[in-house]
């Protein structure tokens, strides 16, 4: 369906407001930390305001169409445009981004990690925000690629400078892994660009045109290779088993703010790439790859869960739980059904809220106890009852308790595997379903065990009379309340998200995947046409 032209600059303002704020901050000396914190917070609040305006202004009646569409020339020589727009698939993720960032800045008010330098730290986060929002609004492959990569440098420096003991190793690993994926992804984009020119009649990186074309005129073998390149790019970012090894390191070493952003938004760039680019543009290849993606997804679920059970560090445990949760998201995507992909988008938002919250808690625990060693912690409910209860609540949400947001990410994803898209083997996916269901049991296991070991019981000797162990402070309350509220809200009213995403998801699958035999139907139809 054609995008709705909105020749306004609202989205552009939304994307570049954080960057503008960062540039303003660059003008002031770094000694004025208070001023920088205010500037950063105000900038992110302005961005949030623009985001709310976008939410209000969005035409929910036609959420399947791309709105606020703006298409300007950018790099004429390759036909890449400054093309942006929002539809129901990207709207929840943009909302998540603009919501999480101010909370992170509030949290930063009294939590600037060592070695200080609030100016640089906050500027990097603002640049990061521009990159993330830009990725979600880009409707041109090259623009998407640029924004997708813009997030790398700030995140790299956040981990490298403000991270933990092993920060150098972790930051380099993060950078190298993601660059490897995206370099091959770029090759895939280029091949798509050249090969789809035959049926489109022109060379274009326009994502709407390429989605409408849906891989027509590209030989099946080339489609499979191109999808492979994209799979590496997005799969590393998600991260899917076996490309996940950068994640525990990056999460463990990153400063709290970095972990929160990484979990809440950055990982979603990968899954978003799958549902926005890889699957709609190459449905035939997606159908061929789907069983393998599903397999890796369920391996990720089980592997992540087992990894969690083996962890002794609380932050690392949460990181491994991300691998498991993103496995559910990928399983939903691999079914190639609207049901599964809706569940996946819900899962992304829910994981963003819940895991972001868990990393906040981990950061605060680390600040109070100076350790995240699970065996040394304990009795949090006695010493810091609110903190303990919030941990318990978030753990419940994370394990998928009905009535909280996590449930609606996991349960429909599992359910969707019962009935995958036309052309996919039902037996295989039903097998995955069983495995994924086992994964939820393991999730309950590791989260409850974590809770038991850290929050319950008596406080251990070494922390018994530690004056630093205090309950949740004001800044933490301000930063956390919105997240906790939304976890409940989306738990009781999941339709708030599903109704926005569904039309767009249906629209994006409106290609050969809807045929009775899946994409094999295309070949049959072509054969029948030529035969008849």
């Amino acid at each position, binding site marked *: 369906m054609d995008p709705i032209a909105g020749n306004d600059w609202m989205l552009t303002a939304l994307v570049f407001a954080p960057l503008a704020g960062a540039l303003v901050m660059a003008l002031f000396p*770094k000694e004025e930390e208070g001023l920088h914190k205010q500037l950063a917070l105000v900038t992110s609040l302005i961005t949030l305001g623009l985001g709310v305006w976008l939410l209000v202004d969005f035409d929910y009646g036609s959420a399947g169409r791309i709105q606020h569409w703006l298409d300007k*020339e*950018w*790099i*004429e*020589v*390759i036909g890449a445009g400054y093309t942006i727009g929002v539809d129901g698939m990207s709207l929840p993720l943009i909302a998540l981004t603009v919501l999480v960032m101010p909370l992170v800045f509030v949290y930063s008010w009294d939590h600037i990690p060592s070695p200080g330098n609030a100016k*640089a730290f906050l500027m990097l986060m603002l640049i990061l925000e521009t990159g993330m929002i830009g990725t979600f609004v880009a409707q041109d492959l*090259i623009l998407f*690629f*640029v924004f997708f*990569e*813009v997030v*790398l*440098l700030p995140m*790299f*420096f956040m981990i*490298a*400078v403000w991270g933990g003991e092993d*920060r*150098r190793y972790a*930051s*380099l690993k993060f*950078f*190298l892994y993601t*660059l*490897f994926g995206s*370099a*091959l992804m*770029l*090759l895939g984009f*280029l*091949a798509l*660009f*050249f*090969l789809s020119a035959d049926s489109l009649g022109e060379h274009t990186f326009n994502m709407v045109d390429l989605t409408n074309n849906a891989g027509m005129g590209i030989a099946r073998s080339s489609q499979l290779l191109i999808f492979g390149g994209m799979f590496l790019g997005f799969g590393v970012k998600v991260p899917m088993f076996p490309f996940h090894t950068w994640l525990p390191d990056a999460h463990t070493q990153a400063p709290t703010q970095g972990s929160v952003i990484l979990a809440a938004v950055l990982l979603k760039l990968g899954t978003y790439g799958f549902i926005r680019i890889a699957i709609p543009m190459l449905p035939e290849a997606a159908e061929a790859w789907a069983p393998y993606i599903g397999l890796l997804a369920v391996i990720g679920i089980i592997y992540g869960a087992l990894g969690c059970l083996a962890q002794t560090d609380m932050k690392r445990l949460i990181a491994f739980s991300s691998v498991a949760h993103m496995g559910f998201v990928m399983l939903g995507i691999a079914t190639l059904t609207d049901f599964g992909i809706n569940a996946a988008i819900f899962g992304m938002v829910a994981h963003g809220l819940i895991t972001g919250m868990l990393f906040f808690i981990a950061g605060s625990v680390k600040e109070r106890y100076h350790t995240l060693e699970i065996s040394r912690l304990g009795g949090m409910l006695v010493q810091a009852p609110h903190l303990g209860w919030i941990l318990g609540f978030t753990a419940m949400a994370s394990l998928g308790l009905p009535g909280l947001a996590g449930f609606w990410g996991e349960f429909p994803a599992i359910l969707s595997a019962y009935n995958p898209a036309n052309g996919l083997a039902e037996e295989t996916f039903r097998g995955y379903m069983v495995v994924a269901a086992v994964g939820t049991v393991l999730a309950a296991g590791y989260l409850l065990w974590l809770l038991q070991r850290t929050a319950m019981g008596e406080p251990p000797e070494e922390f018994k009379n530690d004056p630093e162990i205090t309950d949740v402070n004001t800044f933490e309350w301000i930063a956390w309340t919105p997240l906790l509220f939304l976890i409940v809200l989306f738990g009781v009213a999941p339709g708030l998200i599903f109704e926005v995403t569904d039309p767009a998801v249906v629209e994006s699958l409106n290609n050969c995947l809807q045929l009775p035999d899946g994409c094999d139907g295309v070949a049959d139809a072509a054969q029948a046409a030529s035969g008849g």
Partner: protein
Amino acid sequence: MLAQLAQSVGEFVRPPIDWHAAAPELTLLGVGALLTMMDIVWLERGRRLAPLLASLGLLATMVPIVTLAVDGADRSMFNGAFVVDNYALLMKALFVLSGYVVVLLSTNYIAEGDYWENEYYGLLLSSVLGMVLMASARDLITIFVALELLSIPAYMLATWRKRDLKSNEAGLKYYLMGVFASAIMLYGMSLLYGGAGSTLLVDIDEAISAADSPSSVIVLGIIFVIIGFAFKVSAFPFHTWAPDTYEGAPTPVTAFLSVASKAAGFVALMNLLFVGFFGRDDVYEPVLWILAAASMTVGNLIALRQTNVVRMLAYSGVAQAGYMLAPLAVASAVGDAALEATVTYLVVYAAMNLGAFAVVMAVARKTRSAEIESFRGLFHYAPGLTVAMTIFLFSLAGIPPLGGWWAKFRVMEAVIDANTASGVVIGVFVAVNSVIALYYYARIGLGMWAEEAPDGDVTPVRVTPSLMAALGITAGITLAFGVYPQLISDFDVSLLAGIGG
């Protein structure tokens, strides 16, 4: 008999000269001569004016280049041995502006080191003159003359720190390797002349493209010529001079060699390939493919182990040469797109590499060292330089939105456009090598940002105005190209249009 001979030759008629087309070369020649004269007349008294005069001369050279570009008509002289078209003008501008930045880099370095100044700038200008001439050369003889004109001053410049053994070694090594390469190339040229019967590239193309399979003379000629320029662009395995020369030569000269001299080698190579050998892709493509793949892989792998930032940049330069060669290895399939890719890469590379050297020089003013160790903790006492170096290094690595991504993108675009297995494979080589290269660039970034200064010495670095100007120009260009790549893509470069290819 003599009379008979004279009669057959006929009276010498001066070929028509388009003075406008030759104006850039003539300006440079004039300013270079003026510098030398100044030295003879004023002796030491003129030395303070030398850098000023040299930079003004280079800026003045931009005037005819711009007027020629505005005029837009392709011009050709001497039966087509000297051509001025968009491509030539763009490359001339690149050489002149690189020369200008190198003068900015040299200003304090040469004066404070108490080296000869007038001669230095005179030689620098004559080397730039050779490069500017190379951009227009479409004839074996012209190419060779231009090559020697740009190389011989460079040999001397490399030894400019004459009281330092390393600098002597640098110059000598560069000289020996350089003349060796020239000899091989000249031999190749003589074979080509023997096979084709003309020194004009257009004629050579006509003569050697006709046959189904090339004669062994032609094959040998083409390969020898390519090898000769592979030395110049420091492609593996002909790169061995580069690290030692780069390390020993004065740093501004190193910047000059690694950017302008390499670009000149590429310009010559592109002139030869696109105008002279284009029909013989069965000969040059496999050679270039291997050179490209080997250069990027080996260059990057050796760069991983370097502890000196100049040597690291030397090996990274070998790898970058590999990226630039990659599109040429699929030239027959994509035509001018390959030329555009390599030209774009050269322009972006010039900005980011000169910038990186500018930072190295600025830091070395304080630390007196080019060891990677000495960059540790730079962020704590020189945040501006750190941000600049970060921009240059990650641009070299090809991270958007810095200029390098566009250069690499053009290369990948060209090789994928070829739609052949060899194109896709070299594309994968580029992709994987970008990741390897990131490791050593990022490691310096890590050291600057995330580590403590050695010995806790955090006295600020004093950056001289001319260095500041050089940094501003290069960083600005690097960012501008990355954010709005159309800037360098508006020049419609083509070498094939002229010969109807």
